[in-house]
C-alpha cells in the first residue's frame, strides 16, 4: 500500500525531529521509559505466544513426526492412524483452487486497474463489494458453498465443491494483491507501448502483466496459504467424513489437513492429541515453505521503478 511511500518520504523528517528531541533527552521522564517498555512488551508478548505455539506443536507432535504420518490413512486406532488422505486432499483442493483463482483474480484486477472508468457507479460498486467480501467470515462462504454449490447446483460434497468455495473465499485477496502489483507499474511503460501503436490489451498483455508478475505471484501464494489452512467452510461441505482413500478426481469425496487436525483434537484419547500436533507441524511447514517462496519471489524478481 502507500505505507512504504509515505514512510520513505517522511523518514528523514522523523530522523531530524528525533535529533531535536534528543537535545531534551535530559528531561526524559519515567513515563517515557514506561511507555517504551510497554510497547516492547506488547511486541514481546505477541512473539512469545508465537514461539510458544510452535514449540508446543513440535514437542507434542515429536513422537509421531515421521513418514508414517503421511503414508497412513486415518484410523480409529491411534497407533496406525495417519494423514495421507488429508495431505493429498489438501493438495487436490488447493491445486484446483489455484487453477480457478489465478485467471479470475488477475482478469478482475486488470479490468479494475486498466479498463474501468472509476467514475461509473458499477465500477465503484465492484470495488466496494470486493473490499467487503474480503472481510466476510470464512464460515459464511461455507454456507454459500453448502446452499448453492453442494445443494442447489447438486455437486455434492466433493473436491470440486470445496475448490469452488475456497476460490470464492480467496478471490478478493488475490484481486486486491494483483491490483497493487499492476498499479506499481509506472505509466511511462504504458505510454511508451501505446505510443508505439500497441492497443490497450497488447499493452496490458506484453508490458504491464509481465512487469507485475512477481507482485501477483506473491499475492497468489499468500492467498493460497490462507486457503490451505482454512477449515471452517469445508466443515460445512462434508470435509469431516472418515476417508480412507485418496481423492481420484473432482467428483471424489475428500478431507483436508486442517479438518483432519480438528478431527483428532476433538477425540478424547491423548494419542490423537499427539497426532493432531504432528499434523499441525506438517501444516505449519507447508505454510512456511509457501511463505518463504512468496518472500523469495518478491525479493528476487520485483523491480523497483
Amino acid at each position, binding site marked *: 500500500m502507500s*505505507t512504504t511511500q*509515505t*514512510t520513505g*518520504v*517522511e523518514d528523514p*523528517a522523523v530522523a531530524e525531529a528525533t535529533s*531535536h*528531541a534528543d537535545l531534551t533527552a535530559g528531561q*526524559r521522564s519515567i*513515563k*517515557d521509559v514506561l*511507555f*517504551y517498555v510497554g*510497547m516492547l512488551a*506488547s*511486541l514481546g508478548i*505477541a*512473539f512469545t*505466544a*508465537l514461539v*510458544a*505455539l510452535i514449540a508446543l506443536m513440535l514437542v507434542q507432535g515429536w513422537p509421531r513426526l515421521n513418514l508414517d504420518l503421511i503414508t497412513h490413512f486415518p484410523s480409529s486406532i491411534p497407533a496406525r492412524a495417519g494423514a495421507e488422505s488429508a495431505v493429498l486432499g489438501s493438495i487436490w483442493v488447493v491445486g484446483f483452487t489455484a487453477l480457478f483463482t489465478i485467471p*479470475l483474480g488477475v*482478469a478482475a484486477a486488470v*479490468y479494475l486497474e486498466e*479498463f474501468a472508468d472509476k467514475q461509473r457507479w458499477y465500477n465503484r460498486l*465492484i470495488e466496494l*463489494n470486493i*473490499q*467487503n*467480501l474480503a*472481510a*466476510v*467470515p470464512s*464460515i*459464511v462462504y461455507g*454456507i*454459500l458453498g*453448502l*446452499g*448453492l454449490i453442494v445443494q*442447489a447446483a447438486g455437486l455434492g460434497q466433493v473436491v470440486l465443491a470445496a475448490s469452488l468455495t475456497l476460490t470464492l473465499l480467496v478471490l*478478493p485477496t488475490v*484481486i486486491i494483491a494483483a491490483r497493487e502489483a499492476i498499479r506499481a507499474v509506472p505509466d511511462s511503460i504504458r505510454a511508451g507501448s501505446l505510443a*508505439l*501503436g500497441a*492497443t*490497450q*490489451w497488447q499493452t496490458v498483455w506484453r508490458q504491464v502483466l509481465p512487469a507485475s508478475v512477481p507482485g501477483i505471484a506473491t499475492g497468489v501464494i499468500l492467498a493460497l496459504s490462507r486457503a490451505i*489452512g482454512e*477449515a*471452517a467452510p469445508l466443515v*460445512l461441505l462434508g470435509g*469431516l467424513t472418515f476417508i480412507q482413500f485418496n481423492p481420484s478426481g473432482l467428483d471424489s469425496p475428500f478431507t483436508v489437513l486442517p479438518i483432519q*487436525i*480438528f478431527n483428532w*483434537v476433538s477425540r478424547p484419547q491423548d494419542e490423537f492429541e499427539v497426532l493432531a*500436533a504432528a499434523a*499441525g507441524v506438517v501444516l505449519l511447514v507447508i*505454510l512456511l515453505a509457501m511463505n518463504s517462496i512468496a518472500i523469495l519471489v518478491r525479493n528476487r524478481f520485483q523491480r523497483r521503478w
Partner: protein
Amino acid sequence: MTRAESTAAGGVAAGSVSLRRPRPRYGEAVIRGALFAAALLSVATTVGIVVALIVPTVEFFAEVSVLDFLTGTEWAPLFARPKFGVLPLLVGTLVVTVVALIVAIPLGLGAATFLSEYATDRVRRVLKPVLEVLAGIPTVVYGFFALTFVTPLLQDIWLFGDPPEGFNALSAGIVMGIMIVPTVASLSEDAMSAVPADLKAGGYALGSSKRQVATRVTFPAALSGIVAAIVLAISRAVGETMIVLVAAGGTPNLSADPREAMQTMTAFIGAAGIGDQPVGSIGYKTIFAVGSLLFVITLVMNAVSIRLVRKFREVYE
C-alpha cells in the same frame, strides 16, 4: 510488427481528419467484456451469499417467530422439543470477542506505535513480517493451542475463585486476541504513518518528548484509522470459527463468565454442519438463520471500517 504497421498506415490514411482509430477492434472489446465479467463475479458472489442465506432463513422464520429467535434465552434447536432463542449464542460471541479485544487492542496498538514511531526502517522490515505470521497461522492450530496449552496454563495459575473449565471462553478469547494483533497493528500503523511529518515536527518544536508526540499528536490524528482497525478486528473475532469450536466447548450458555464453556454463533454453525443436517429439516434451516445474523453483523462492521479508512485517507493522502 505487422499489426503495428497496419495501425500506423491506418492512422496515415485517416490523415489529419481524426486521430481516432479507423476501424473498431472487436477483439479488444471481447477481451474487455471477459475481464469485466471476471470482475463482476465478485458481485455475483455477494448476491450468491445473500440468496443462499435468504431462502432457508425465510423458511426458518415461517416456523419460528422472529421475536422468539431474537429474545429467547434458550438455544436447543436440535432437541426433540426445540428451543430457538439465539441470545445464548449472541452472548457467547460477545464474551469471546470482548476477551479477544482486551488482548488485541493494547498489544496491537503498542506494536503499531513502536513500528510507526520508534522503530528504524531496518527493525521495521524485520519485525513486521514476523508479526504478520501470527495472522497466517491456521485457526485450527490456534484452537489446539488454546485447548492444550492456554487452558491448562490458566487452570494452573488461577488465583481467585474457581479456575476455568476444560472448555472455556477465556482461553479461546485470549488466543483469538493474539491472532488479531496483526489486524489491529498493521492498519493502525498505516494510519499513524500517514500522519504528516510536519504535525509531529510541530510537536517536537514545542519541546515534546517522543511519547508525548506519539500519544498527543500522532494518535489523535490517526484515530479514525485506528478505530477502523479495531472495528475490523471485532469483525474478525465475531466471524472466527475454529478456535471457538475446538476450545470454547459446544454448549450454548447464557452467561457472562468467561471461565465457563460457551457456544458462539460460528461454533454453532460449524457444529451443526458437522452433524450433517438433512436438507430441509429445521436443523438445516437453523444454520442459515444464524448465518444470516452473523453475515449482517459482520457486514455492518466492515462497512463502518471501510468508511473510516476512507476518511483518514482523504484527510492525509
